[in-house]
Every structure is written in C-alpha cells, then in structure tokens.
C-alpha cells in the first residue's frame, strides 16, 4: 500500500493539476481571464439564482382547458353530423371530459362518420395516422363520446411543447439575459431568469394566452344590464378592456384570427399621437380581412384579445392591403407588450404560475460574501485542529484538504454545475467531513504502531485496513446525497451536488495524494515514531 510506481505518481499529480487548472478561473474576474493565454480554462462556476440574483418561475399548462376546447369543437361537429343525417337528439351537453346526448337510434354509419370527422380534424396536431381518437359508448338511448387516453396525452403533450415555444419567443423578445426555459414533467415549464428580481412584467406577459380575433359586433340588440347573461343565438357577451361597465355583444364567428398575423409593431398614431400597435396579415389573412371589411362597411368590427374587446372601430372602407392598426387607450409599454404577444403567437391554453422565487442582486452578493467568510473561518479552524491532534500527519491532511477544496471547485467549473447557497454549505460541510477518511487512516496507523509495527508497515496496514470502513462510511452519505438530488430542485439540489463531489474528492485524495505524501514520509524515516508520539 505504500509503494507507488512513477506512472502512478505522475497520474495522481496530473489529475490534481487538471482539477486545479479548472478551479483557478474562479479567483479572477472575467476581464482578467480574457487576457490569459488560451490554453487556460476560462469556465467559472455557474452561480445559482439565489447567489447571482434572478427569478425562478414554475408554470403549468392548464390541461383542463385544452380538453375542454377540443370537446367544444367536437360538440359542433357531432351536432352537424346528426342534423345532416336527420337524427333526432335531445339533452345534448358537454361535461368536463365527454359529450352526452340522448337518441332514439344511432346507426353504425353515423358513428363511423363522427369518428372520421374527428380524426381528420385532429390530424393537424397529431401523428396518429388513421387511428381513432374517440370512445363512443351507448347505454340504451344515452350516448357518450369522449377522447381516448392516448389522444388526450398527445394533445396535452403537443400543447405543452407549443406553449414552451411561445413562452420562449415572448421572453426572448424582451431581451432577457440568458434565460433558461425547460419543460418539467408532463405539463410544466420552469423558467429561470438571471438578473431579474422583479418578474412582474414577464408574469404579465405569460399570464395572457394572447388569442387575438376579429369578430363582428352584433348590432341587432344592445347589452341589457338587467339581463346580463342573455345574448342572441350565435353571439356572446364580452367585456371591454377600457370600460368596466360596458359590455359588447359580438358574433361568435371568428372572421380573422391572430394565427394569420405575420408581424406586429408598436408605434404612435400620427394624428392623435396615441400609442398603437400596427399589424400585418399573411396572404390568407389579408384576403379574409379584405373580404370582411368590404362586405361590412359602416359596421363596428371588434378586435378581441383573450375574450376582452380591446376596441370596436367602425369600418369606414374596405381594407385590402392586409395591414391595420389597433388603438385601445394603452400606454407605450402596453403597446410594446401587446406587439410582443402578437408576434410570439397565442398560447394553446392558459398558463398557471405555481411557484415564484426571486432573489435580488444584493441578497445574492451578501450570501456569497457570508459563504466565503464562513468557509475561510471553518477551514482555518479545521486546519488548526488537525495539526493540533495529528501534528505532522495533520499537516499532510491539511494540504490534502486544500487540494480537496480546489478539486471541488474545479469539478463544479468543469461540469458547469450550479453553485447555490446550500451548495456553499455543502462545501463547508465537506471541509469538516473530508478529513474523516484521513482520520480513520491515521487512527489505524496509530493502532498499528501501538501494537508494535514499524512505521513503514503501520502505514501500509493502516491504509489496507481502513479501506473498507472508509468506503462503507462514505457510501452511506453518498446514498443520502443521491436521494436528495433526485428529490430536490433548485438551490437544495446544489447542496446534494457539492456534497457528492466532496465525498468523491475526499476519498480520492485520501487514497492517492495523502497516501503518497505519507509513504514518502514513512520511507524517509528511520523506523522510529517521529511525529506520532504514543502514550503507552
């Protein structure tokens, strides 16, 4: 256990050297690093949001809405098929996960037709092929139609992927520094925004689905406050963005939608100097828009965002160029945000904010400072204590401890793992626990000497006999760290990372570097007990 070949010595030193090289950049500023030669690694430890300041948001795609919307579409398809085939039905209703109605007869061809329509309507979202996506059950005269589980899963997964893309576009539009946007689980999105400690604006941007539609105002009737729910068939009541007391009655049919927009830019109306958003349609949108405006000159045309009427200007003349503008009493930031939303596109379903954690830059800097301070003091205390207890061997363990710390930093930098405040705590804990492997070995060596071994044999046997204990003892802590890693997220996860790295480096240094030092020392000695006074 105490003889090392030259290759072994070299590789031990090389591993340590590489780890040190990767740790070094953390002690310089970015500018200093840039002036260094190119062979020196420049990656610094990645600081977590709790240390550099920033905002963490956990969002969930409202999957219930997705299914609800699909069921509503299905509802009108099914009714159409039934009507077309002159099938009498009653009690037609949508529940949360199916459609229900009562029929006298329900022939197989009709079922087949419904299935075909549903499949062809869903083709745009899914690679389901011709596989059916509906379950039709009939109990006496009661028919219920629901989507298959596979279809629901696929629809949700699709909507989440789409949401992720739109969230990314919206945040990118704001010019945020290095945002991280990731999917988590089946329906969640994690957003990390370094440097943003007040995410109000982003939350507001993400809180809107931004579904833009142009619909005609129903001029056949006026909104009746005494009878607030009543709208003519085919129309709906929508609130106004600018006036809380006023409601619009709008025809349900969507004439043109936001999906046909190709561009939207904030600007100012040259006459009123009011902030506006100007937009441009694609070819299909432009021709639809042109046709509608041509046929409805003199009628009010509602511009609707997320079921709220932004404005309803009267069409003065046909707009054939495919571009237009929205003004709705907003300020220039609102105009800017609306343009961002329209450019990025609509979310397929609303997003719900489940969790928000924001840390200001001051607190982050304070935490780093406090962490460094605690690390240095803890480190000095441990070093002094080890020298006090083990004298020369303690000194060797202290050198190993320093190398250990550099290795933890080096590995964190190399793998670009994230260092968090609990992560710093993990490193400090490692300072205390890393000496354990050496302590176990030293105690073994002492015992060997006490029972009469020569120093050189005592070192060899000490290492040999401490090995299994050290492995067992460290594996238990490692198991705890691994469980923590899988269970936790965010800052706490950083703790499990540094703890685990610390375990590896401390066992590694104890069995390579300290062993090397002690072997050199033991071999250089006359078989005396210098440095290890024994009391008996």
């Amino acid at each position, binding site marked *: 256990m105490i003889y090392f070949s030259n290759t072994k010595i070299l590789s031990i030193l090389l591993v340590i050297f590489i780890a040190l090289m990767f740790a070094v950049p953390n002690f310089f500023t970015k500018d200093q690093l840039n002036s260094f030669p190119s062979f020196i690694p420049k990656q610094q430890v990645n600081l977590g949001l709790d240390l550099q300041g920033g905002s963490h948001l956990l969002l969930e795609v409202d999957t219930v809405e997705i299914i609800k919307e699909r069921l509503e579409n299905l509802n009108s398809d099914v009714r159409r098929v039934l009507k077309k085939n002159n099938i009498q039905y009653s009690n037609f209703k949508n529940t949360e996960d199916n459609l229900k109605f009562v029929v006298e007869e329900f022939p197989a061809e009709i079922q087949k037709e419904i299935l075909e329509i549903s499949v062809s309507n869903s083709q745009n979202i899914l690679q389901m092929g011709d596989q059916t996506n509906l379950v039709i059950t009939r109990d006496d005269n009661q028919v219920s139609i629901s989507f298959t589980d596979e279809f629901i899963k696929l629809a949700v997964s699709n909507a989440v992927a789409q949401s992720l893309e739109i969230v990314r576009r919206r945040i990118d539009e704001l010019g945020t520094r290095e945002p991280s946007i990731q999917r988590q689980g089946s329906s969640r999105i994690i957003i990390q925004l370094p440097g943003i400690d007040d995410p109000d604006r982003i939350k507001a941007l993400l809180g809107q689905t931004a579904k833009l539609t142009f619909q005609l105002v129903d001029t056949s009737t006026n909104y009746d406050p005494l009878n607030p729910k009543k709208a003519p068939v085919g129309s709906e009541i929508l609130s106004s963005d600018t006036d809380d007391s006023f409601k619009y009655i709008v025809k349900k049919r969507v004439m043109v939608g936001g999906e046909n927009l190709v561009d939207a830019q904030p600007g100012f109306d040259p006459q009123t100097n009011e902030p506006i958003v100007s937009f441009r349609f694609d070819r299909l949108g432009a021709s639809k828009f042109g046709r509608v405006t041509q046929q409805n000159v003199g009628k009010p045309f509602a511009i609707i965002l997320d079921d709220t009427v932004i404005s309803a200007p009267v069409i003065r003349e046909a707009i054939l160029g495919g571009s237009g503008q929205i003004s709705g009493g907003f300020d220039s930031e609102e105009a800017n945000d609306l343009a961002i939303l329209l450019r990025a596109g609509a979310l397929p379903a609303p997003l719900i904010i489940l969790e928000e954690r924001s840390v200001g830059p001051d607190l982050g800097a304070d*935490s780093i400072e406090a962490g460094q301070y605690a690390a240095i003091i803890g480190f000095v205390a441990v070093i002094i204590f080890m020298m006090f207890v083990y004298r020369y061997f303690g000194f060797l363990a202290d050198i190993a401890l320093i190398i250990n710390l550099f290795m933890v930093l080096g590995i964190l930098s190399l793998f670009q793992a994230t260092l968090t405040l609990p992560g710093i705590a993990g490193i400090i804990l490692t300072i205390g626990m890393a000496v354990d492997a050496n302590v176990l070995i030293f105690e073994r060596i002492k015992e060997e000497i006490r029972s009469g071994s020569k120093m050189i044999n005592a070192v060899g*046997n000490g290492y040999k006999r401490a090995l299994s204990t050290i492995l067992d003892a460290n594996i238990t*802590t490692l198991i705890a760290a691994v469980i923590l890693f899988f269970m936790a997220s965010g800052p706490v996860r950083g703790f499990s990372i540094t703890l685990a790295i610390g375990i590896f480096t401390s066992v590694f240094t104890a069995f390579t570097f300290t062993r090397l030092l002690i072997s050199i020392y033991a071999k250089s000695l006359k078989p005396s007990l210098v440095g290890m006074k024994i009391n008996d």
Partner: protein
Amino acid sequence: MIDIANTKINFLKSRIITFIFSSILVVLSFGAFFVSGLNFGIDFKGGTLIEIETENEIEIAGLRDNLNTLSLGDVQVQEFGSKNNLLIRVEQQSGGDQIQQNVVEIVKNSLDSYLSSEVNFRRTEVVGPKVSGELIQSGAIAILAAVFAMLIYIWFRFEWQFSLGAVVALIHDVILTIGVFSITQLEFNLPIIAAILTIVGYSMNDTVVVYDRVRENLRKHRSKNIIDLLNLSINETLSRTIVTSVTTLLALLSLFIFGGEVIKGFTFAMIWGVVVGTYSSIFVAAPLLNYLDVKREWNTTSAVDSTR
C-alpha cells in the same frame, strides 16, 4: 498532541439509563410534534414570503398592523438578521394557484406607500398550494427512502442485526430532529429536509465505523463476552468519532455564525444532527447489538484476510 486512544470507558454499563434517556427524548419529540406541530415554512404550507431592507429602522408592530388591514389573512412580520431587514410572511390565499400571485403586488404597493424610505426587495417567494403539497410529499418520501436505503445497504454489507440496530439509531436521530423543530418552533422548510437527509448520511457514517470495528472484533476475539467486545469496539473508534465530529462541528459552527440568516435554520439542524448522530452511534446503535443476538461465526477465511 492529543491521544484519546486506549480509553477503557464502560459505555454499556449505563445502557439502561441511556436507553431510558433516549426514550424520554423520543417521547418528548412525539409529544411536541402532536401538541404544537412543526412550524412549516411556505415551501410546505404555501403562501408568500418577502424579505425587505430599508435605510431606516422600521417599527415592526406598526407595519404588521398596517399589513394586516389588507385582508390577506394572517400576515407575520419579523426581524431578519438586523433591524433594517424584515421578513414578511403572508398565509396562503384560498382560491387556487393563480390567486397567490396577487399578494406580492398588494403587499409591495402597501409597503411603498406606508414606508417613507426606499424599500429594497431582497427576496420574494410565492408557493402555490399544488407545489407545497407536492414538496411535503416528496420530502417525506425522500427521508423514508433514505432510511430504507440505509437499511438495505447495511443488511447487504453486514447482517440483519446490524441493519436493524443502525436503522433504530437513525430513526431515533430523525425523530429527535423533528422534535427539536417542534419544540423550538423554528421554521421547517425545504432545506431542513436536506439537512435531515444529511443527518441520515452522517449518523449512518458514524454508526458504520463503530459497526465495522465490532465485526472485526467479533472475528478476532471469538470468546470475548459481547458486552466487553462492544465496549472495546466503541473505545477503539472513540478517538476517530470525536475528531471527525469536532471537525464537522467546527465547519458547521462557522457556517452558523458567519454564513448569513438565510441558511441559519439549515445549519442549526445539521449541528443538532451531528451531535445526536454521534451520541446515537455510541449509546444507541452499538448497545442495541447486545440484544440482537449477533452472529459470532463469521467466515473464517475472510476473517483471516482482513486481520493480516
């Protein structure tokens, strides 16, 4: 140079007393847990937490009264580290995840108008009911999984008797940690779960070192009476147990004193855990082996192997 080796302390002599002592602590912990419960932080209870810093000292009672008029339910205000740093906690609002988002805005506006000096918002955390429910569940699962994993690992590496003794000591440590948080009513949040898991690892680490020596002595001294053998093993590893505990405590104390307010609770839990874990490996885990009928006939060839 300190030498704690060659001690001949009879640790098992007072085992009945230490068992009773431990049992009382466990019962006290259970009592405190069921009477006052844990003071869950927003990670587990949901709600909003805002840390602010101001130029001038703020009169807490006045601010608290002001915030409690906002009809957000219970609002707590406490000093956090210094007189200029305050922690504001607002309980979870009823009405689902989306509703919680309004709280921050309402509190911020109210603070801006109530306090004359500039307010620095250092930290804002909002945890909705869905996430807090999941966190409490995954925290509990993590602790159970860790204890179970230790049980399996020790069983695999030793014998079931050792595994049982170690896990009893481990559960003892976890209960006492939850107990001390119930008694002190210190905030119990996500990092505390991390601390408990670390305690599980640390306590096991300590126990394994003692057990390892017990196993070795079982092979070496076949005729020795088990009590003497356990005492011998504890004494032989005592020096290491103390040195490692001291270095770990030195590092943790430094973190506790200088590491800042945010991780104080976390560090406190670990300091407590190291003390309890060290105690339990000497006074719970090892003496328990006396009652668990450990196997004396270890495989002779491997015994020869590891004793030179």
